[in-house]
Structures are given as C-alpha cells and as structure tokens.
C-alpha cells in the first residue's frame, strides 16, 4: 500500500517555477510553516466526517466490545465484570465449537475453490482480447446479488426436494431427496453458492493477467515451455500479488457469511446446526438470548482469528508473492 508521503504536494516550489504566473510576493519566504498549518487544518476538515466515523463508530465500539467481552451483560442491566468467564464457557460450549468447525470448513475449502474457479475463468477470458466484455459482466453479476436474501431464497428452492438441482441429478440416477433438510448436504450447497459468486475475484484476476507483459510468454515459448509450464513459471508468479489480495479479502469475507446462512436455516441454525455459522451463532447469542457479553467475547475471538489468518498470510507471502521491480 503506497501511503505516499513521497508524493506530497509541493506547491511552493512549483509556484516559483518559471513559466507559471508570477508568484505572489506575499507568499514567499517563511511560507512552508504557514502552508503546513493550513494544510493540516484543511486536511482535518475534509477528513472530519471520516474521523468522526472512525472514533464514534469503529474505534470506540471496538474498545467497548473488548470490555464487554469480560463482562456479563444482558443490555437491560449494567454490565458486570466477570473476568474470563465468557471465554471459559466458550471452551466448553459444543454449539460454539460446531459453528467454528463449519465456518472453518467453509472458509478453508470454499475460498480456494472459489478462487480457482475465478482464476480459471479469468484465463479463459484472457485468451481472447475482444468480445469478452459481455461474458465478463455476466460472470460478475452473481457477485453483486449473491449475498442477498432473494438469492438465498432461490438457492433454497433450487436445492429443495423436487427443485431443479434434485431433478437434474435424478436423471443420472442420483436421488438425494432435496439438500436443504440434510445436514451433510448443507455445506456443499453453501460452498456452491460461494463459488457461484466467483465473478468479483475473477475481474481482479483478469485485470492482473492483462498486466503481465507478453514478452515473458514469448521468451518462455522460445525456451520451449508448454502451456502448463508457462502457467507455473510465468502466470502464477506474476499474478501472486493479486492472488494474495484476493485470498486475503475473500477469506475474511467468507468468515462473515451471514444472510444466506440465516435465510437458508430460517434463522435457527438448523438442520442440526448445519447453517449455524459463526456469525449466525453470534447474532443468536446477542440478540435472541441477550447474552451481549458472551457475544462480544465471540466477536473478539473472531477478530483475533481473522488477525492471525491475515498475519500468517502476510508472513508466508514473502516466500510466494513476487512484486515485480517495475510494476507499481
């Protein structure tokens, strides 16, 4: 991320350049400091809505939820300090561990499949240089609506008994009798819903593919490399920053799946806890059972888990993400 104090504007110098209008004499001499103060003031003024949001709606609530994680709190009476009680309870809460398990499976299995699909289709589209705009848009559409309640309802209908998926499979002699009521089939159904939304990472992959210089492929061809070799030795390394970016954002997004799971399970987490994803359970604890302290503790466990995941990705990225010298 280029925060870029390097390209800080240097107007003072420019205004003295020949060829521009004659500089206002009052604005020379002892000016940098005054300009600095004015820029500071202007900066904070322009940033004021964002700053207010940062402190009142993000940082403040974060700290307060950290406090709540160590309390017993039901929203009607004041929070009561309870030390590590919430975390101890969590350790012995089998429903909690169930939700952790299905969420981890969803993140660790679903995301790689989704990204593989995204990369595969991006390469397919990149094969041609023209006439792909329509397909790019068509494939992107599910990403825009996939997390909506409408699609969750449609997904549920499609995978129910007598739905199109089931009757399609019965043509091949597979009779599952609907996926929605079967706990073991909920996860494949949810992962399919995630994979269906491969469009957003695909668009990002496609933009990355277009930036790979064609000379690299030509050089590889001269060296006798076949398609697979080119993929491994040119495409993947050159695309690694984009892969890293997609992996990070998609995994963090997958942890937070809520609406689809909530609708498909009718808000109950059922059948047999199969739709009780982490955030669904957190919501139930907080707003159905009024256990705000416990839910805050869960929220912080999620935050730390996401933080650890991001940390691992960043640490290992040094060995597999290649930033080209001149690509910036």
């Amino acid at each position, binding site marked *: 991320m280029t925060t870029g104090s390097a390209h800080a504007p240097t107007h003072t110098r420019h205004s003295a350049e020949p060829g*521009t209008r004659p500089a206002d004499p009052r604005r020379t001499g002892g000016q940098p400091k005054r300009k600095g103060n004015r820029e500071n003031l202007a900066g904070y003024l322009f940033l004021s809505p964002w700053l207010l949001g940062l402190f009142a709606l993000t940082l403040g609530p974060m700290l307060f939820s950290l406090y709540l994680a160590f309390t017993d709190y039901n929203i009607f009476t004041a929070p009561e300090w309870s030390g590590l009680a919430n975390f101890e309870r969590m350790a012995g809460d089998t429903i909690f561990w169930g939700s952790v398990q299905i969420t981890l499976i969803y993140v660790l299995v679903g995301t790689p499949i989704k990204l593989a699909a995204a990369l595969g289709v991006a390469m397919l589209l990149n094969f041609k*240089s023209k006439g792909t705009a329509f397909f790019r848009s068509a494939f*992107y559409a599910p990403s825009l609506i996939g997390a*909506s309640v*409408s699609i969750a*309802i449609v997904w549920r209908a499609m995978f129910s008994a007598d739905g199109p998926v089931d009757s399609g499979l019965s043509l091949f002699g597979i009779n599952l009798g609907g996926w929605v009521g079967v706990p073991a089939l909920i996860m494949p159904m949810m992962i399919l819903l995630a994979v269906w939304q491969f469009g957003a990472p695909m668009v990002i992959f496609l933009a990355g593919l277009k930036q790979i210089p064609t000379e690299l492929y030509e050089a590889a061809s001269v060296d006798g490399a076949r398609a697979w070799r080119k993929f491994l030795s040119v495409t993947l390394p050159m695309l690694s920053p984009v892969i890293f970016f997609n992996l990070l954002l998609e995994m963090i997004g997958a942890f*937070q799946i809520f*609406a689809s799971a909530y609708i498909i399970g009718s808000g109950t987490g059922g059948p047999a806890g199969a739709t009780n994803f982490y955030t669904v359970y957190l919501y139930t604890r907080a707003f159905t059972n009024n256990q705000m302290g416990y839910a805050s503790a869960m929220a912080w466990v999620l935050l730390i888990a996401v933080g650890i995941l991001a940390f691992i990705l960043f640490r290992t990225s040094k060995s597999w993400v290649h930033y080209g010298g001149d690509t910036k």
Partner: protein
Amino acid sequence: MTTIETNPTAVPPVQPVRKRRQTPRKTAATVVWIIGIVVLTAVVLYPLMWMISASFKPSSEFGSNQGFLPENPTVDNFVKVMEGVAGIPTWKFFWNSTILGVGAVIGTVISSSMAAYAFARLDFKGRPLFFTMMIGTLLLPFHVLIIPQYMIFRNLGMVDTFFPLLVGKFLATEAFFVFLMVQFIRNLPKELDEAARIDGCGHWRIFWSITVPLIKPALITSSIFAFIWSWNDFLGPLLYLNSPDNYPLPLALRVFNDQSSASDYGATVAISVLALLPVMLFFVIFQRFLVDGVATQGLKG
C-alpha cells in the same frame, strides 16, 4: 472469427509465415472456446433464469412440473405478492428500501469524496497513520462493532428508525469507497490543482470545481455500489428495524420466506424476483462502471 487478426498485440510475431497452417487450428480453438464460454454462461446464469421462469409457475406446478418452463404461465404470484405481508402493502417495502438506498448514496458520495481528497491531495499530520487505519477497516470483521453500535443507538432512542442505518454512510465508514476514490484522485494530473491554487483557489474550491467533476466515474461507481449494498443489506435492518411498517425488502422477504415457503413457493420466488429487479436494472445499465471499479480496486492492493 476474424477478431484475432484485428488486434495486432494478440498476434505472435511468427504468425505471418505460418498463417496458412495456423488459421484452421486457430479457428478450431476459437470454436471450442466459444462453446466452453457459452456453456459456462448458461450455468452461471441458470439460477437467475430459473428464478424468473419459476415466478410465473402456478404454485401447484412446484413439485409436479420439473420442466424449466411453466406449463400454465400466470402472473397470479405477482398479484398475490403485491398485497404484501403483515398488513403492509408491498410497495411500502420498496419505498423503505428506496429511501435507505438514496440516503446511502448521498451520504457515501459526500463523505467518501471528502475523505479521499484529504488522503490523496492534502499533506497533514498523521496522514500515513490514518490511511493505514482506513485500510485496516477494510479487513475488520463488522461483527465486532454491532453490539456497541446497537447500544449507542439504543441509548439515543434511535432503534426502529432509519438513522442507525444511514449515519455510518454519512461518516464514510465503508473504506472501499474512500479507497476507490483515493486511487482515482491520485491518477489525476496535479497541474490543474496547482494552477487553481495560483489563481487563489482554496482547497474547498479546488475540491468542488476541479476534483469532483473529474472523479465523476468513481462517484458513479460508488453510488451504484452504495445503492445496491444498501438495497441488499440484511443484517443492518434485522438489527435495528422492528415494526413491519419500517421494513425494507430483505426483511419483508424473510417474513414471506418463513411464512409461506412450504406452501407457496410461487409467491416467495415472485417477490424475490421483484426485489432483485432494480439491482439487475442498475447492473445492466452501469455494468461497465461496476466491473471497472472492482478491477481497479485490486490493482494497487
């Protein structure tokens, strides 16, 4: 297919010599490519096609008619669905969703463009730190904030109003938009700003007369995303809106789904179609802006 020849960059340098031998093979590859991509498109768009087709099926055909098309197409589902749920007519849900969506667009465009101008063009103390924090909020799981935020709005007596759902939009809490606009402003030539400054323009004037008109594409992209995300948002309304009178579409859909999914698929699917219609319309009109917006997002990450 002659599309390859028209683009010189796609043609490898050795092509002219082997043209005679390569053309049939290239044509064959193109045919395979087209078949593959069309099949893929059909699979990806199938759920949407199915949903539209199913919304015209009478409820009795669910389960009995396994075919894609309805045997006796009817608009009964739509007529029935417009009556509404819980005594509230369906147009009211559309109205609530529209207010929330328009409010989200106005708030997001104003607050995010201001923040982006500060990050991209102004040199103030603490900018690198704040910028890092802004990027950090991109990765922050929203669920850490919902309980304290709920307490704040509850203490302010704002539960069951639209205020909690809109205030964050006016405070640029969605870092995606700020980041998108920062990227856009950084790519604008600085000379214009400097010329205006020499002419005596202040920052507000530069922002309003130079930056805002030039970042119009980013503003359009942000507006559409802000509207669609607000339109689709489920968790926010679920947390804050209790009375059916205030329900936006996602909450109404949920009530429909829970009440009638077993008995009345037709109506439930019909209202799902209606709820997605504005989004799909926006998408068809503005797809370019949306897809390009997503593409630029990743490039500098």
